[in-house]
C-alpha cells in the first residue's frame, strides 16, 4: 500500500453556490478490501467535472455508489440539498442522474429511437405510438445536434454514434446530472469533437456533467473542475484552469515513500546491449484503434521500463509484442528473423512470455491447483499427449515455490485461495518454467502487498542479470525507474519518448508523461 502524507484535500470553489450533488465522507468496503474511505464529491449545475485517478483509485466505485449500484458503508449523499440513497440505477435515473458507460449499455438490435425511449415510449390505444416515438427521438437528437436517423438500427452505427445515442437517452429524461464513464476511450479525434459539442450544449442548458477520462488533453479541453482520487482516498478538488498537467499527474500517481531499497543495478546489461543484436525488434508495429506505429528494440540482459498513464497504450504495446492482439501493420523480428505472431502460441514457441495486468481474467485459472497453474504454459506447448513426467513436475513446482517463496507452499492448494501477491508469483513461475528469452510483465506488482512486491522486483533484476530481456510495465514510476535500464514513455496511444535510464528523476518522467516536454521530444526525434 502506498503511504502518503495526508494534507487536507484542496478545495476549489466554483461560481454557482448550491451543489446539485454533494457526496461527503463516503466509505465502501468489499470483504476485507476498503475500496473508498472518506471520499467526497461536489457537483454544481452547468459544470463539467472531471473525476481523475489511476486504476484502482476508486472512480468507478464512486460512480456506482452515487447511482445506487453499490450500498455505501458510511457518509452521506445529498441531491439538491436532500439526503438520498438510491436503491438501484433506475431509482437514481428517476431522480435525474443518468450514467453512460464506456461499453455502450444499449441494445444493438433495436432502432435508435427505441433505444432512446425504451421503457417510456409514448403510447396510443394501449400500444406504442411508433410515429410519436420517432418524432420525439428526432427532436431530442436535433436539440443535441446529433445527426442520425431515429428509425435505423442502432447496431449499424459506429460505437461513437451509439455513445451519442446513449447520451441522448440519458438526457431525454430531463437529466440534471449526466455521468460519462470513459466515453472517449474508443473514439477517434473527430468523434471526440462531436461528443464535446454535445457536452457543451448540455452544459449551457444547466446540466451537471461528471466526466471520467484517461486522456489529460481532453480533460483540459472540456472540464471546469476536477476531483482527484488515489487508492480510494480523496487527494484534491481543483479548478482545471489553476492546475498544471504536471501537478495533476503528481496528484494522481503520488510519490511512494522509499520503503524499498534501491536495487543495485549492474552494468553488465548495458554492455550486452552494445555488443549483441536485439532479441526482438519492432518496426512500425501498429493496430488500428489501439496503438499508433512504434519502433522498439529489446536486448538480452536488459530491463526496458514502459511508463505512462492508464490507457496510454502501454498494455496494448505489450499485447502486440506477444501476439495476444494481432498487428495491422509493421514488422516484428525475433532473433533477426521476421515473424508474424498470429496467436500467443506463436510467441511462446519463439520464447516470448507475457504476464497480463488483468490477473483475474487473463492469468489465473482459479479452480486449478498451484501446480497446474504453474505448468500450464509448458504443458500447453508440449500438447496434451506428452504430459510432463511426474518427477520433472514435482521438481519444477517445488523449486519455484521455494525460489519465489509462494505461500502456502502447497502445490495442491487451489489458486483461488491464494493472495494476489502469491497468485502473481505463480504466474511468474508459469512463464519462467517455459524459459523465455523475452519476458513481458504488465503491472506485475499491482494490488499486492509490499513484501511480495519487493520480491518480484528483486526477481526481475536477477533475471536480467542472468541474460533475460525483460519488459516491465508499471503505473508506479519509482518502480520503473528503479528497475529499468531503458525507459519508454507512452501517451495517448503513442510511444512519445525513449531514453536510457541515467539519472532520470521521477520529476523528469512526470514531465514527459504530462506532455510538457513533448514538443522538445518531437524536435529531438526529427
Amino acid at each position, binding site marked *: 500500500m502506498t503511504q502518503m502524507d495526508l494534507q487536507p484535500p484542496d478545495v476549489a470553489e466554483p461560481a454557482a453556490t448550491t451543489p446539485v450533488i454533494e457526496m461527503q465522507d463516503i466509505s465502501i468496503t468489499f470483504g476485507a478490501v476498503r475500496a473508498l474511505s472518506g471520499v467526497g464529491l461536489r457537483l454544481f449545475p452547468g459544470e463539467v467535472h472531471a473525476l481523475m485517478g489511476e486504476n484502482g483509485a476508486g472512480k468507478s466505485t464512486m460512480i456506482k455508489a452515487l447511482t445506487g449500484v453499490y450500498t455505501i458503508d458510511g457518509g452521506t449523499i445529498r441531491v439538491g440539498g436532500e439526503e438520498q440513497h438510491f436503491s*438501484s*440505477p*433506475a431509482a437514481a*435515473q428517476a431522480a435525474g442522474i443518468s*450514467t453512460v*458507460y464506456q461499453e*455502450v*449499455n*444499449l*441494445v*444493438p*438490435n*433495436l432502432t435508435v429511437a*427505441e433505444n432512446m425511449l*425504451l*421503457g417510456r*415510449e409514448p403510447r396510443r390505444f*394501449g*400500444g*406504442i405510438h*411508433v410515429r410519436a416515438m420517432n418524432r420525439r427521438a428526432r427532436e431530442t437528437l436535433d436539440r443535441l445536434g446529433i445527426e442520425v436517423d431515429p428509425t435505423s*438500427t442502432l*447496431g*449499424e452505427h459506429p460505437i461513437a454514434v451509439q455513445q451519442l445515442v446513449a447520451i441522448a*437517452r440519458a438526457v431525454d429524461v430531463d437529466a440534471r446530472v449526466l455521468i460519462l464513464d470513459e466515453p472517449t476511450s474508443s473514439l477517434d479525434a473527430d468523434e471526440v469533437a462531436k461528443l464535446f459539442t454535445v457536452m457543451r450544449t448540455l452544459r449551457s442548458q444547466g446540466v451537471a456533467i461528471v466526466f471520467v477520462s484517461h486522456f489529460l488533453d481532453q480533460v483540459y479541453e472540456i472540464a471546469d473542475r476536477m476531483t482527484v482520487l488515489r487508492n480510494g482516498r480523496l487527494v484534491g478538488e481543483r479548478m482545471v484552469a489553476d492546475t498544471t498537467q504536471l501537478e495533476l499527474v503528481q496528484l494522481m500517481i503520488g510519490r511512494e515513500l522509499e520503503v524499498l531499497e534501491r536495487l543495485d543495478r549492474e552494468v553488465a546489461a548495458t554492455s550486452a546491449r552494445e555488443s549483441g543484436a536485439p532479441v526482438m525488434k519492432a518496426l512500425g508495429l501498429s493496430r488500428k484503434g489501439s496503438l499508433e506505429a512504434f519502433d522498439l528494440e529489446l536486448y538480452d540482459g536488459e530491463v526496458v521500463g514502459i511508463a505512462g498513464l492508464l490507457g496510454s497504450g502501454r498494455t496494448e504495446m505489450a499485447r502486440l509484442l506477444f501476439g495476444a492482439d494481432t498487428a495491422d501493420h509493421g514488422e516484428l523480428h525475433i532473433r533477426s528473423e521476421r515473424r508474424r505472431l498470429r496467436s500467443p502460441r506463436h510467441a511462446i514457441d519463439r520464447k516470448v512470455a507475457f504476464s497480463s495486468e488483468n490477473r483475474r481474467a487473463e492469468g489465473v485459472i482459479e479452480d486449478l491447483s498451484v501446480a497446474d497453474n504453474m505448468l500450464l504454459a509448458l504443458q500447453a506447448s508440449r500438447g496434451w499427449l506428452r504430459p510432463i513426467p511426474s518427477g520433472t513436475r514435482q521438481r519444477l513446482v517445488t523449486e519455484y515455490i521455494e525460489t519465489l517463496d509462494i505461500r502456502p507452499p502447497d502445490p495442491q492448494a487451489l489458486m483461488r485461495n491464494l493472495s494476489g501477491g502469491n497468485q502473481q508469483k505463480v504466474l511468474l513461475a508459469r512463464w519462467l518454467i517455459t524459459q523465455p528469452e523475452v519476458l513481458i510483465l504488465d503491472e506485475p506488482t499491482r494490488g499486492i502487498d509490499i513484501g511480495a512486491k519487493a520480491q518480484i522486483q528483486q526477481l526481475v533484476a536477477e533475471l536480467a542479470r542472468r541474460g533475460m530481456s525483460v519488459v516491465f510495465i508499471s503505473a508506479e514510476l519509482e518502480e520503473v525507474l528503479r528497475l529499468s535500464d531503458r525507459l519508454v514513455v507512452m501517451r495517448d496511444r503513442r510511444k512519445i519518448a525513449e531514453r536510457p535510464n541515467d539519472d532520470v528523476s521521477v520529476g523528469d518522467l512526470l514531465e514527459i508523461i504530462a506532455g510538457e516536454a513533448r514538443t522538445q521530444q518531437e524536435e529531438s526525434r526529427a
Partner: protein
Amino acid sequence: MSTATVPVAGVSAWDRVRGFRPPSRYLPVLATFALFVGLFGVGGLRYEGFADPQVFLSLLLDNAFLIVLAVGMTFVILTGGIDLSVGSVVALSTMIAAKTLDMGWSPYLAMASVLVVGAVLGTLMGLLIHYFDIQPFVATLAGMFLARGLTYLISVESISISDSTFSQVAFSTITLPGGYYTTWTVVVALVAVAVAAYVLARTRFGRTVYAIGGSESSAMLMGLRVAAVKVGVYTISGFCAALGGLLFAFYTLSGNSLHAVGMELDAIAAVVIGGTLLTGGRGLVVGSMLGVLVLGTIQTFISFDGTLSSWWTRITIGLLVLVFVVIQRVMTRRQS
C-alpha cells in the same frame, strides 16, 4: 438461399438496389417466405393437385397446434432462452383434457384448467431461470420431465375424448368462398399469431423481450422490467403449449402420454427456419409461422411424391436448421 445472402460485386447497380432494400430485420423472414413460396411452386409444377388452395389450407389445419407452439417458443428464443418442455406440456394438456372430461367436467372448465396448468408450469420454470440463475435449457428440461411424468401419473393408457363440444369444434368446418373450407383450430392459431405479433411489436412488454435478447445487462441498466418479462415469456410459452395441446386434442380427440414426443424440436426448428436468431434479439413471430408452413410443405411434398421416404423430412429440416444457423453465425460475426 441466395435470397438471404446479398451479392457483393456489381458496384453501381448494387448501390441503386440498395435504395429499395427493406430494413435488414425483415430479410430473414422474406427469405423464409421465398423458401415457402419456392417449395410450394416446385410442388405445384411437379405434382398434380399440389397447387390447389385446399392443400395450403390443409397445411394450416394439420399444423395449427405447431404454429401455436412456435409462437410461444418465439417469445422465449427472442430473450435468448429455450423451452424444451413444450412437447411434454402438449401431451399433459391432452391428458388433462381427456381425463377431466372423462370425469364429467364441463368442457369449458376442462379447457380452462388445461390453460392454467400450462401457464403455471411455464411461470415456475421462468422463476427458476430468473431468480436462481439456472440455465433455461436445464430448467425446462426439468419441466419436460415433470410434465411427462404427470401425464403418466394420470394414466398410462390412452384416453379417448367423446365430449360433444370437443368433437363439434373438431369436426365443424368454416366454408370459404370457392368451396374451400377450414376449421376453428386454424382460426385460433392465426389469432394467436396476430396477438403475439402485436404484443411483440407494439407493447413495452414486447420491446423489452427484444431488449433482453439484445443485451440483458443493458436492459437491466436501462431500468426495464427484466424480471417480469423474463418470467413472462416462459408463462406465455407454457400457455401456448397448453393451447397447442388443446388444439392437438381437437385434432386427435384423445389424451395420450406418448403424444408429441420430440415436438419441441419441431417448434425450435420452425422458429430457427423462420429467421429468429437463436441467441436472441432478432426475429418475428410471422417468421415462425412461415417456418411451420415450410416444415409442413416438406411433409406434404414427401407424401405427394410417394417415392421419397418420411425420414427425409427430418433430414431436410436438420439441413435447413444448419443453413440458417451458419448464416446467422456468419452475419453476427461480420457485425462484431
